[in-house]
């Protein structure tokens, strides 16, 4: 098992390398940011000086190798604009994003799984249809429309919750909770839709399995059949989707952080993209990819807990 974990870890290296190459090339083929850095009134000579100072005049492969060597040493470089190390920026900004992601995942799972099970159990009835229509809606309404809607109702009209901002739960748990509710609701919709659908589909499938019939033949009550037999067996695809959905979640975080003005990683990266702050873009996309890969690795390994048939 430990050997296996090691193997799987090693196998993520090519994936991350692919990410690194894609991101690096994509950004560098678009020219260099020297002109932005040099400012509004810079003359051509000044731009050239900046270009040399940052090494944008060197061949691409040389820049790439230099960057990779740096990254391997745990150094993601420094922001071109503020001069702050990218690792510092990530450390500063990770808490709000992490909290938002956590509350969203927890809330979504708590809502979506029972909904999905219910829909599967009552498959074909109006309950099923209602859940599924809600799920389709969750996929269809743009995140920012939801965000504005919630903000309008709960913050502007009812004055119940703040419209924006983030407070750390380690400082003021109440303010944290008030601030995180709307972003969580907003971001959860698509995730709930995703998880509810897969829960329904995979529970529906397990409900057709022979062992469900066996459980009924034993005289088991429906609720236990559903949760103990069906859901447990449906867990692997559900957990898989939760893992794959993290990519979707990160996309949603970007928009949600913008709407609710949460100073997290999503905004850091969007700002960096509009400013061509390459070290931040590269570092953050790599960081997101790393999180995605590691999370899915953990989920892969967790399969063994969910399904004893899976052994590595």
């Amino acid at each position, binding site marked *: 098992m430990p050997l296996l974990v090691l193997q799987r870890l090693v196998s993520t290296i090519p*994936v991350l390398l692919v*990410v690194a190459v*894609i991101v690096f090339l*994509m950004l560098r083929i678009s020219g260099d940011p020297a002109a932005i850095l040099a400012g509004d009134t810079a003359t051509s000579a000044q731009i050239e000086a900046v270009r040399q100072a940052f090494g944008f005049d060197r061949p691409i492969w040389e820049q790439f190798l230099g960057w990779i060597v740096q990254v391997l040493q745990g150094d993601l470089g420094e922001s071109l604009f503020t001069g702050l190390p990218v690792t510092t920026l990530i450390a500063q900004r990770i808490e709000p994003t992490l909290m938002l992601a956590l509350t969203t995942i927890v809330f979504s799972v708590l809502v979506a799984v029972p909904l999905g099970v219910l829909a599967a159990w009552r498959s074909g009835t109006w309950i099923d249809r209602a859940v599924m229509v809600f799920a389709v809606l969750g996929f269809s309404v*743009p995140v920012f429309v939801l965000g504005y809607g919630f903000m309008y109702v709960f913050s502007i009209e009812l004055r119940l919750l703040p419209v924006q901002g983030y407070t750390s739960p380690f400082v003021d748990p109440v303010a944290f909770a008030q601030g995180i509710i709307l972003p969580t609701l907003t971001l959860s919709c698509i995730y709930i839709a995703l998880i509810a659908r897969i829960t329904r589909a995979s529970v529906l499938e397990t409900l*057709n399995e022979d062992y469900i019939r066996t459980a009924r033949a034993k005289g088991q009550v429906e609720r236990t059949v559903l949760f103990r037999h069906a859901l447990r067996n449906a867990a692997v695809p559900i957990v898989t989707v939760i893992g794959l959905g993290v990519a979707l979640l990160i*996309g949603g975080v970007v928009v949600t952080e913008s709407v609710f003005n949460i100073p997290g990683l999503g905004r850091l990266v969007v700002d960096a993209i509009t400013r061509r702050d390459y070290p931040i873009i590269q570092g953050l*996309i790599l960081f997101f990819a790393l999180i995605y890969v590691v999370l899915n690795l953990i989920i892969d390994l967790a399969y063994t807990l969910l399904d004893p048939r899976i052994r590595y």
Partner: protein
Amino acid sequence: MTAVVDKTAEGAIPPGDEPTPAPAAPASHLAGTLRRYPLAAFAALVLALIAFGAVFAPLVGTTDPTALNPAARLQGASATHWLGTDHLGRDVWSRLVYGARVSVVVGLAVAALAVVVGLVIGLFTGFIRWLDPIVMRVMDGLMAIPGILLAIALVSVSGASIVTVIAAIVVPEVPRVVRLVRSVVLSVREEPYVEAAVSVGTPLPKLLWRHVLPNCVPPLIVQATYVAASAMLTEAILSFLGAGTPPIVPSWGNMVAEGRLLFQIAPMNLLYPGIALAITILAVNILGDALRDRLDPKLAKRVGQR
């Protein structure tokens, strides 16, 4: 034995020797789907209307959607401007109708491109063993990058145009299609009739074309609808983040992004395109769900997602 009984009690018994009634022939799939899913029929009707508007945009009471008239900005609904004007004095109704074109084009183009590219890569990846690990690592890499970020970055570096937006949305969608096709190929590869075709000496291209490809079509049709819906949504999000189609293009995403700034003054300018977008995506998704139930009940499990 009937198909109905087959699903239930007698399913466990080895199939018998009485003629099995035919499942519906492929041609009647759509019609059958619509009859069995009234909601889907309604969705199809909505989509047909939208498509009609998009195709015959010049004929449905529209003027030039890009014609500026700053003096007549932010007007309410009137006989000349059915839905009023926007912040540059352009006719909102015309933009809405022409915007359907953009959304339809983006949705269709992304779906078609993602499916074609993904299909080609997936087919060969599934059948050529040495290619598989390489391609799949690249796909894993692409999947690991959050799609929206990848798309914003692509549009930012390559400039905003409909073509780059389409390309930027296609890139993150391709790995999903590849995985889907590959999973179908891997399972079809084990089917006895494929093995039978191998043993009668069918060369690989013919094998893929005749025996494997047709199996990929139903799940791909379903996936294509989802891709189309998600592409329209992504186009709107890109515009929202300022990295979408050029502002001159009357797309719903741009209308939402522009309307957002003046939401407090002219809320309808955001709501019209927002609602149009949501309804279209909803209709596509509903249709996709119905098709999935009909064509490929196991799709959800096979892709692991959507």
